[in-house]
């Protein structure tokens, strides 16, 4: 269709503008996440420069983290009214003396002799963190001239980024990512990896899927196949559908009282009475996290089941009945297999929703730091009474509550990327499954 009238053109352009803005927003957010998330582990160039303050000059080694331009008003508000230029850079200096700040702002006009010396090295020390300096065997010389002894045991990794080729950098990059995903956090979540959070999220979500699948499908089958279609059932169906829209935090509130205090408290009194008042199950833990997530996603699965069942052609059922099959036989041999992709999609979408959930889990067992993984070597291989860490909560906690914000912030982008990747691949899987089964089904039914 074309647009011929002025109003039509205005509508066209305005609607195009809206779409454009939405697409740009999506683009900017995705790019931001990708750029910040990926650049964390890309070996940055190490710089060396002279910093002049008054009559003193100081040699600085470091990595440029960010640049900023302050307007005169901002300079004024920050108490630097006398400055002419508002250009400044944030430099990560690493460890350079006890009690010295790792990150420091430098005004651009106080800097001179900017070079990228190839021999400058980055050493990640087991206890001191990252150190920048020139390395000789067993020693490292810092920018201020002090020399530290390095024993091989202390060095986590060592590299000279200015000498690396792109391929080498890529190797370092992938190794860093692997370490990020496979080690435990250090220094109050501001260094190290995210393994416990990753395991916690995956485990709680898998447990949730185990719980919600049979329950949700059973309820959905009941609602769609067995319940008589009266006014009451319609009302119930409407309510169940709308429970999906009830804020997740409300489910969290309910879960805290009903599961943790109620159910967990009773289990403790019945089976772990000897350990009381030390609670075993009557305290936030993995099992309650999974149950809460299951409760939260139950309406989603029920709705998906019902929709899947509704889409099965009536002719299929009638054919089954015509051959003398009972209702159960029609259901289990004909309807459910045909509806399976829809059910699967519903469950995958429920999982992807659960993986990003944070607010309700704050009450029921997700914590800042859990010292051990909720796994064990004997059956059932998991410890449901342990507290867990989760990716979503790490984003909230490390992002906003960390004491070392400059070091923590880039990590959060990386964690967010991992979470987004997880959820994205689940969504993609659901989409592909739906398409695949739909194609197969149309082929079989035609």
């Amino acid at each position, binding site marked *: 269709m074309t647009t011929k009238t002025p109003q039509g053109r205005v509508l066209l352009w305005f609607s195009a503008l809206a779409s454009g803005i939405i697409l740009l927003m999506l683009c900017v957010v995705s790019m931001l996440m990708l750029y910040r998330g990926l650049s964390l582990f890309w070996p940055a160039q190490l710089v060396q420069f002279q910093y002049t303050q008054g009559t003193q000059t100081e040699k600085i080694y470091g990595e440029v983290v960010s640049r900023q331009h302050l307007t005169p008003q901002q300079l004024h508000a920050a108490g630097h009214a006398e400055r002419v230029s508002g250009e400044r850079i944030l430099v990560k200096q690493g460890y350079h003396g006890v009690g010295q700040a790792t990150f420091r702002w430098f005004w651009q006009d106080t800097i001179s002799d900017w070079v990228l010396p190839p021999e400058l090295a980055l050493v990640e020390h087991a206890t001191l963190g990252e150190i920048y300096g020139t390395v000789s065997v067993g020693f490292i010389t810092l920018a201020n001239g002090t020399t530290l002894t390095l024993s091989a045991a202390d060095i986590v990794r060592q590299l000279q980024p200015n000498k690396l080729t792109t391929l080498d950098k890529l190797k370092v990059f992938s190794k860093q990512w692997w370490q990020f995903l496979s080690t435990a956090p250090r220094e109050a979540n501001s260094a190290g990896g995210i393994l416990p959070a990753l395991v916690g999220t995956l485990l709680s979500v898998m447990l949730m899927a185990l719980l919600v699948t049979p329950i949700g499908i059973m309820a959905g089958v009941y609602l769609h196949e067995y319940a008589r279609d009266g006014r009451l059932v319609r009302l119930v169906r409407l309510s169940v559908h709308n429970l999906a*829209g009830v804020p997740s935090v409300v489910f969290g509130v*309910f879960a805290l009282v009903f599961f943790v205090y109620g159910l967990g408290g009773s289990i403790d009194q019945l089976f772990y009475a000897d350990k009381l008042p030390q609670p075993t199950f009557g305290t936030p833990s993995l099992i309650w996290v999974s149950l809460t997530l299951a409760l939260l996603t139950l309406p989603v699965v029920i709705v998906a089941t019902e929709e899947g069942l509704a889409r099965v052609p009536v002719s299929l059922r009638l054919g089954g009945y015509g051959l003398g099959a009972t209702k159960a036989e029609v259901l289990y041999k004909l309807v459910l297999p045909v509806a399976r992709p829809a059910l699967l999609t519903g469950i995958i979408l429920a999982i992807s929703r659960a993986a990003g959930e944070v607010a309700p889990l704050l*009450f029921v067992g997700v914590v800042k730091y859990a010292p051990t993984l909720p796994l064990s070597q004997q059956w059932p291989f998991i410890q449901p009474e342990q507290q867990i860490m989760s990716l979503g909560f790490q984003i909230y906690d490390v992002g906003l509550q960390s004491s070392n914000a400059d070091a923590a912030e880039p990590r959060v982008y990386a964690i967010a990327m991992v979470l987004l990747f997880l959820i994205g691949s689940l969504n993609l899987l659901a989409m592909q499954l739906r398409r695949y089964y739909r194609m197969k089904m149309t082929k079989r039914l035609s």
Partner: protein
Amino acid sequence: MTPDTSSRLPTGSKRRWRTFRRKAIDRSWRVLIALAGGSIILALLAIFLYLLAEAAPLFKPVSAKLQVIPSVATDIATPAVTPPQWQQLQQSSGFIADYELVDGQKRYLILARRNGEACLISLTQAEKGCVQRLSLTDRTVELTTVVWLAGQQTLVSGDSSGQLKQWFLLPDAQGQLRLSWIKPFATRAAAVVAISPEQARSGFAVLDARGEVSLFYSALSKPLWQQVFPAFAGQADTLQFTPRNNGIWVFNQQDAVGYLAVDNAHPEISLRTLWQKIWYESWVQPEYVWQSSDGAELQQGKYSLVPLTIGTFKAAFYAILVAVPLAVFAAIYCVCFLAEPWRTTLSHLIELMAMFPTVIIGFLAAIWLAPAVEQYLLALLIFIIITPITVFVLAHYWRLFPRKVQLLAGRGGELFVVFLLIFACTAIALWLGDIADNALFADGLHNWLELHGVLYQQRNALVVGLAMGFAVMPIIFSLSYDALSQIPRQLALGAYALGATQWQIVQKVLLPLASPGILAAVMLGFSRAIGETMIILMATGNNPISNFNVFEGLRSLTATLTIELPEAAVDSSHYRVLFLAAILLFVFTFLTNTLADLVRQHLRRNLQRLES
């Protein structure tokens, strides 16, 4: 007919047995599924009832029963008769008093006589004498009692006409503390005999000459409970609360003459304290306050749900303001102007936005968006103004462009043009913003705003609106898209055949038919925004204020739950009020969703009728 011997079907009893077994399996499945499914659904619906049961004790009426005096009087504490300590001061100031009271910080002395005259003396400047003289009664009646409530911030006086009055020490215009009349409590039918403050709580009990005992809470004028005990008329002179406030001793001349068992767990919660302005102790005026724990020694929980509700709606309102125009217009664009396969691609892309977990959006809003908005606020405002104007102008003069360029429109090419336009507008807005900032606001826009009475906080409703708008956009978009694309194609084609223009089709055919669906989409988006937690938690300052200023933060019901529930003591008033907040959220979102659902069903039925 002869039996078919080649049939593999069993015959006779074997066949009957098999039929029976199949039927039994069918029946047992039916029972199993009905039981399991039904109970799951009932349990799901019972969540609401469970929440209600947790919050219900808040509104349980206060009751007290006369009991036999417990023989083991462990928690009995005979009211201490304080000997007059300030006689010297009384003499030096020339005010000989019957009652003397010192405030909690031992800085002020209040002297009162039986005729109601009172005098306030500053203990740090005792030589000045009375800094304030006033009358605690109407002069014609006699002051019978005056006491501090727990925490020594509130004075309650009772007189022989049965009137009860509340007094605070409040600063006047010069900053001098003065004893100020706050409000009367409900008048008793007979002269007030005794007032007894609760322990560590701002309630009190009153005994009058008829023997009536009544319970009050300092923030409420009406009594929580009252009952006449003729046995106490003239036979009792003092009341005393037990340490846990679950009983009142009645004394006559130091002898216990009665014991009342009191059930008054949550005096600070009532519909009035939750929803109306309350004048709290040592506040200058009545206000809506949410302050679940204050610094004062005395825990007087201030649980007004008004700031939280306003915060919730404020955030949702700005989110909707951002999301609805963008999402609905984008849906119109997809359905009316884009052809396949671009239509599916674009709608999938926009629906992809739903994938972003809200905690990530909240993080980006707090760490990246909030500082950016603060720095480029003026540019953002200019962008919001100039972009639609530019688009409007472009639409009007599009015909003047060369024919080759004109062909771009209507085939997806306009998206490309729009991108260029947005970039251009952004650049212009940044440039203009810089100029305007230097020219108009010498100290920066924020100081200018503050000078004109508008507070600017970095994490404000604007940031939340943008971030949450991003979060609710996909749901509004996909529902509007559904509503628009469900409309039978022949309607639009018919109108087209009759010579209607595109604009007329959209205006007269598509929009009227789809408007209920779009309305439902907006409602669902709104309800989603009401229930959103992480974005609000991270991107606002979480301070409970009751205004709609875009540049100030807010605190929502959901964020309050997240922050405070893990810390609230189980079964305390605070804990139960949080449940009330959860119920409020539940009811509101549930009703909105139901309404939206009904609207959509109605729409679907209408369209089916049109199609047939």
